[in-house]
């Protein structure tokens, strides 16, 4: 049986981007499917990345543009894998292209629509600390830089649904401002979701991670000034909602004292997550450093269990954070609560053997890294195994870390387990080399093994 020399890459984060580019550069056709309206993934949200503090916009955006323009890559954003059948060398995949309600062939990406849209929705890219419009591109450097209409929140779509449903109550306004103002007449209310069927020889799964929601740790107070690491990245980012000025959500005050909590949810079997999330030690050290650079005469405390800095240049980075005045307290935090204008962080310093209470204007939780929402459904669709958390299981944890449990389906990035950017990129390239190796053969034997 002939090997179909075309690959499906699921997930447009840095791991999926790397895998797609390497396979495309190897001369084979790639279909890159991303469920959000833009590639970039979590990395695009970060302010600056450790250990070299380069800006992800500078190092990631070129790769994003490459996948958007590569002649061997078909980029399907706002799309999701629905169904897989067949076997290694010859899979049939069904992909649902969600309705964008915008004709991307006509759209020039001028931006008039998303600037004028009156509806405001919490921005996924800004992790909820700022709003976006109902017609939007997720962020300025989005690829493609053409918008989609969020049909759940669009006023006109709500109006149409209201009229069709013949429901009682107040009719939502007609709106259609985007349509009236669009110079390219690209708004297409008739556009429907469509299913795309493709034949591919291999699949790379790079569906990434999501952070554990803070509400799973009720002892860490539901308070607007208790935020997670990605939200703080957006605050620190020069391209973020406050242009890099750190302001706490409750009252916009610039926080003079910030407490960072490592292992919030991770390494905590009591909360069902025994694993180490691997990146929190480093990004909290980085965030503390960036915060102290942004707010002079400020105080940063980091609660930690151990500092795990196993990457190249990481320990040196940590030492720098410590010498620049961030105070490390070895112990866990038992409770965070509001006391007037301040948050109180109760914990223990196991080096002095004393209970401590640190006051803070803002608390940043290094929440546990979990598989992206829907990973278990994805595994079921792909027919591959996951561990208890939903991270995809590799064929062998040590010597086959790139293969899934199903031949022809490869793993890349944090979908397989928590990892940092260098490891995600390396695994993306590794999965690509596996696919290229497969595509170097032209025939499959009945046993599913490739022959030359």
């Amino acid at each position, binding site marked *: 049986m002939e090997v179909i020399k075309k690959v499906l890459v699921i997930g447009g984060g840095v791991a999926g981007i790397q895998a797609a580019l390497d396979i495309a550069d190897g001369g084979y056709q790639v279909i890159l499917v991303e469920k959000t309206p833009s590639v970039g993934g979590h990395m695009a949200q970060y302010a600056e990345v450790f250990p070299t503090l380069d800006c992800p916009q500078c190092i990631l955006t070129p790769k994003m543009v490459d996948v958007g323009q590569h002649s061997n890559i078909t980029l399907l954003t706002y799309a999701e894998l629905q169904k897989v059948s067949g076997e290694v060398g010859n899979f049939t995949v069904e992909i649902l292209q969600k309705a964008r309600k915008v004709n991307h062939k006509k759209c020039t990406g001028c931006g008039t629509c998303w600037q004028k849209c009156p509806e405001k929705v919490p921005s996924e890219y800004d992790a909820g600390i700022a709003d976006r419009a109902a017609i939007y591109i997720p962020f300025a450097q989005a690829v493609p830089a053409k918008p989609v209409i969020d049909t759940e929140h669009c006023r006109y779509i709500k109006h149409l649904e209201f009229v069709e449903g013949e429901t009682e109550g107040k009719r939502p306004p007609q709106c259609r401002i985007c349509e009236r103002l669009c110079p390219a007449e690209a708004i297409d209310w008739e556009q429907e979701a469509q299913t795309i069927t493709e034949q591919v020889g291999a699949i790379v799964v790079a569906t990434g991670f999501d952070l554990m929601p803070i509400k799973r740790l009720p*002892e860490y*107070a539901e308070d607007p000034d208790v935020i997670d690491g990605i939200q703080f990245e957006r605050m620190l980012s020069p391209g973020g909602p406050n242009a890099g000025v750190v302001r706490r959500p409750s009252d916009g005050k610039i926080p003079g004292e910030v407490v960072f909590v490592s292992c919030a949810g991770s390494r905590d079997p009591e909360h069902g997550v025994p694993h180490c999330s691997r990146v929190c030690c480093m990004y909290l050290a980085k965030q503390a450093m960036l915060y102290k650079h942004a707010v002079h005469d400020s105080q940063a405390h980091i609660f930690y269990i151990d500092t795990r800095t196993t990457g190249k240049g990481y320990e040196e980075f940590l030492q720098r954070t410590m010498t620049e005045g961030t105070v490390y307290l070895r112990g866990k935090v038992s*409770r965070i*609560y*509001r*006391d007037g204008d301040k948050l*109180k962080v109760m914990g223990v310093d196991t080096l002095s053997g004393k209970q401590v209470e640190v006051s803070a204007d803002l608390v940043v939780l290094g929440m546990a890294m979990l598989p992206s929402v829907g990973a278990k459904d994805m595994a079921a669709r792909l027919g591959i195994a996951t561990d208890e958390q939903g991270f995809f299981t590799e064929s062998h944890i040590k010597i086959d870390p790139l293969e899934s449990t199903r031949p022809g389906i490869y793993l890349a990035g944090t979908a397989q387990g928590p990892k940092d950017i260098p490891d995600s990129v390396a695994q993306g390239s590794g999965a690509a080399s596996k696919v290229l190796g497969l595509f170097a053969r032209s025939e499959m034997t009945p046993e599913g093994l490739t022959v030359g």
Partner: protein
Amino acid sequence: MDLSYYPGCTLKTRALNFEDSAIAAMAVLGVNLIELPRWNCCGTVYSMTDDDLAHHIAPVRNLVRIAEQGSDRVVTLCSFCYNTLKRADLLMRNSPEKRNTINTFMDDEIDYDGQVEVVHLLEVLRDDVGWEAVARKVKTSLEGLKVAPYYGCTLTRPQEIAIDSVESPTVLQGLMQAVGTTVLDFPLATECCGSFEIVSDPDAVIERAYTILGMAQRKGADAIVVSCPLCAHNLGHKQAEIAGKYSDFTGMPIVYFTQLLALAVGVNPEVCRFDLNFGGVEALLRDRGLIPQRV
């Protein structure tokens, strides 16, 4: 409904206000708390030493007494008693080897292997009676009274025996809302009161108490509602000393949940023994017109 009731030592001495108000209030709600004819010390503190089985004999013997009289459920008021009895029961259910050793040691008694369910009165109120039924029985709503719920540790720790969420319990809130009080968001509701450190390190307990009481005062609480006699003691009896040390502390009434429940369902205030409470509970209730002025 009749329920076997295990009192424990403190309810017969320092915490008469807890016991008397509970029995009277539950009678109004149609639950008769029937004290065990024979009981002994609950063991006070559950021994964490793996091979220290002798410490579990006291609570197990109580469970045997309860099983002997044909009851399969026992209710406690004191949360320390709840903790030791419930954990001893769990040990006897889950560790066949230890169960065997303990049963053999007490060869004059019937064997115990988990015949009795140990419950706390708050569970009975929540699960058997229900907040709506409590609310229907309220004669004097305690509206306007702002309370801070305080759980202490032994009702919700360890997790295996918790009567409610370990980190964010709500059972006292449910009850206190049913009797009409305003329940404040109290972040220190599950903080340790200092517990038995009161014996060896009273100064540490004073610091704990000041933290908890001070927070309640800043939150605008009229009183702290407790469910444990040791919490009541630790938060209550050193308040004059705390006020002497910290000038911003002016006193905080400490009241058992059963006393406010009793008051709300129409039990004679004299039965509630507010005279035994710390922190000026009588003055507060008089001020609010909830108990008669002193003649």
